[in-house]
């Protein structure tokens, strides 16, 4: 009897734990901080998670096919500086400014897929290597400097361009619905979430992704071209990271160096927090969004409480490890008892 209650409690935690934690944290900060529960702050939180949500969506795709992509943080860093350099160094038209980083994201995905599928390097190791390569490329590309409007080169000359205001509206623009401020990146984020959810849930491609991840051999024997599906998942992961990079540049207004470094950890945490939401037991879009929301709320609240930024990593790491504990404990228990 007691074991039954424990079992049920565990499952309840698994299904709704993450959502309760988000609500709990939200209530806590609302009571504790005067300025937390204001329309503008909530808009801020949403805007701040839009970047990590895009990156986390990418990670979701790689995890669905039973892979892993550690290179997303570096991809964000690289695409951030590339986007800025397109404007500041080369004064390119908007289409190129956005197109080139997207292309780079796709190429990083292809590179990952090449190592993982063709050379059969385990996904964690392959993307770890790629992560370092991309991080190195992005620093080499800018020689270690962030890219600002009319930046000074070491030889004394000045960069010709600026990060255009029209570009910055992508990340910083807002419009108003009544008294509510809705940042434009939030719209992008919500659109992407809905699109990804529909894609994964209701289309052939989504089903193929999940089946490939669920049992690659069975999927292949059922006529799914699993290598193609896995390659596409990594390409989507890279492109999502690239979108994150573009948004980052636009939001901050500079091509900051190492912008993506903290995002890898946040994105992975978001996906694993979301693993269990509503008992999905597998990577899913809605869960990923809940996870990103949790991290966004935490970071926002902690910042408002004047905690030093370097303590945030401790809290984010703890959230990740808790989410992983619940997920893997329940998932593995379920598997061992069924066999």
């Amino acid at each position, binding site marked *: 009897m007691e074991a039954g209650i424990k079992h049920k409690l565990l499952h309840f935690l698994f299904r709704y734990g993450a959502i309760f934690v988000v609500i709990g944290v939200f209530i806590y900060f609302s009571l504790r901080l005067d300025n937390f529960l204001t329309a503008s702050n909530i808009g801020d939180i949403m805007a701040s998670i839009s970047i990590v949500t895009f990156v986390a969506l990418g990670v979701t795709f790689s995890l669905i096919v039973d892979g892993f992509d550690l290179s997303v943080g570096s991809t964000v860093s690289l695409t951030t500086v590339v986007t800025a350099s397109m404007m500041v160094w080369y004064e390119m038209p908007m289409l190129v400014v956005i197109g080139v980083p997207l292309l780079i994201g796709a190429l990083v995905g292809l590179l990952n897929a090449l190592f993982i599928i063709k050379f059969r390097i385990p996904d964690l190791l392959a993307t770890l290597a790629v992560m370092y390569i991309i991080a190195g490329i992005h620093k080499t590309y800018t020689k270690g400097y962030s890219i600002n409007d009319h930046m000074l080169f070491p030889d004394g000359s000045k960069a010709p361009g600026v990060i255009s205001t029209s570009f910055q509206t992508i990340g910083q623009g807002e419009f108003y619905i009544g008294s509510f401020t809705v940042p434009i990146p939030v719209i992008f984020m919500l659109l992407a979430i809905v699109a990804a959810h529909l894609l994964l849930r209701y289309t*052939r*491609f989504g*089903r*193929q992704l999940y089946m490939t991840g*669920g*049992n690659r051999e*069975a999927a*292949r*024997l*059922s006529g799914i071209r699993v290598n193609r599906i896995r390659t596409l998942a990594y390409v989507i992961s890279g492109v999502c990271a690239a979108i994150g990079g573009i948004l980052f540049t636009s939001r901050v207004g500079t091509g900051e160096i190492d912008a993506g470094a903290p995002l890898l950890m946040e994105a992975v945490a978001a996906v694993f927090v979301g693993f269990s939401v509503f008992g999905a037991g597998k990577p899913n879009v809605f869960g990923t969004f809940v996870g990103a929301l949790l991290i966004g709320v935490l970071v926002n609240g902690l910042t408002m409480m004047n905690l030093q930024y370097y303590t945030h990593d401790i809290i984010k790491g703890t959230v990740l490890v808790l989410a992983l504990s619940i997920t893997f404990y329940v998932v593995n228990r379920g598997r061992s008892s069924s066999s």
Partner: protein
Amino acid sequence: MTLSTQYATESSPTVAYKEQRSECDMDIPRSLLRMVGIEKSFNGIPTLKQVDFEAYSGEIHALLGANGAGKSTLMNVLSGAYSSDAGHIELHGMKLQIDQPKDARSVGIYCVYQEVDTALVPQLTVAENIMLDQMAKDTASWWVSPAHQYRQAAVACAKLGVELPLTKLVSELSLAEKQMVLIARTLVEQAKVVIFDEPTAPLSQEEAVRLFAVMQLMKEQGLVVIFISHRLPEVFAICDRITVMRDGVRVYTDHVARTSIQDVVGHMLGRTLAEQVPKQVVPIGDIVLEAKNLVAGNRVRGVNLAARKGEIVAVVGIVGAGKTETSRLLTGVDQIEQGSISIKGQSVRFKEPADAIAKGVVLVPEERRKQGLVVHESVETNLSLPILKRLSNWSGWLNGKIERQLAAEIVEKLRIKTASVQTLVQYLSGGNQQKIAIGKWLESGADVYVFDEPTKGVDVGAKEDIFQIIGGLAKQGHAILYFTCEFAEAIGIADRILVMCDGKIVQEFDRQAATQEQLLFYASAGKEGEL
């Protein structure tokens, strides 16, 4: 020591039993394993209901039953993997308290599971693996003496009457040898009861014979040997007594000499069953699939075969003859190195299973859980896996309604026992899982079905259903290639039987022309004229 004194003082029930048995002129039981009134439920569903089970030392006792009858659960209770809800276990008249595997092992109850790899450390030598439990004991010395280990391991092997390469790494052993390592380990531990859970399923005929010899030796040394198997002929060949379980109840126990396979099957099913499904005779048409001189690796060395419309072609051979490899070449899972495949006279080249499926050639693979199904997904999702294209429109949007409808149709047609189409496949029994692995192709428009050991680990009832399904597919005009190591099945179901040996087709028989002996003769490299 304590056990024998215990036995001497508390032998009265055994004595009474002896008297009763002596009328049936059985050999006199020296000691006894008794399980009394065992009950076990999972989530409120009873799996074992008041089960009594007895086995003597010095006998091989077969425990039979269809899948889900409760025989594995009963043995898991005995070996401590599960704890029972009610009832008790006695060994030599002494009541045992078994709550975990450690308890069972400490009184000498061991189980040799089918998945041998889970109990072995591949990087260690054979001797070290045999001595593994000894080393793991709390009382074991800090220092390990390799010489001592080899001596002890050698003693255990001598007792078994087998020669194992003691210094070899376990990772280099064959499956049958690994099994022997596990058995040797039980002997080192002074086992009194050894449970064999379907040990012969993955073995070839010769390997099984060797295993039986070992079991015979263990029996002669006074052990209680409990043998779980789906293969009735071997049960009748080597066992002394048989216990049959059905739906969590022990329904029958008797000496093998006083029963027959038909009887036992009847008890397993709860009804008597004609031994074979009557073969449906259907008109046979033109050649659909033809393979010429297929070569790949060292397992397939020039295979020629053809399958016609409406024809069931069985390819038989012992384990390792290259059957699985051939089935994988025909369906594009592996690449052929030489030779050619043609479909309806048109030469084809498969780079991926998807290419083969596009041409109408599909595979029902041997390892259904690993290769045929996505077990953590629902019945519906598994059934629609190969036909996603049909279920979706130009944009790739899936039609959930039609998907559900088709899944429900297949479930009904194949009599798949499942709570609903949403149930996860992992919760279904082996036979129903296999039906799903077959059923998912029904709507795919396949012309050629390639089956690799479709009845492996499937109970008698489901087996019958599967034969009927395959017969039905042939009737609809599909060509069937049926790869199996069960010769009787091939004779029962096939229109034509090809015998495979060492990577080649060595003999061909028509339906009526073959006997099991003949098939075995050619499958084990016999030459024409020697018979």
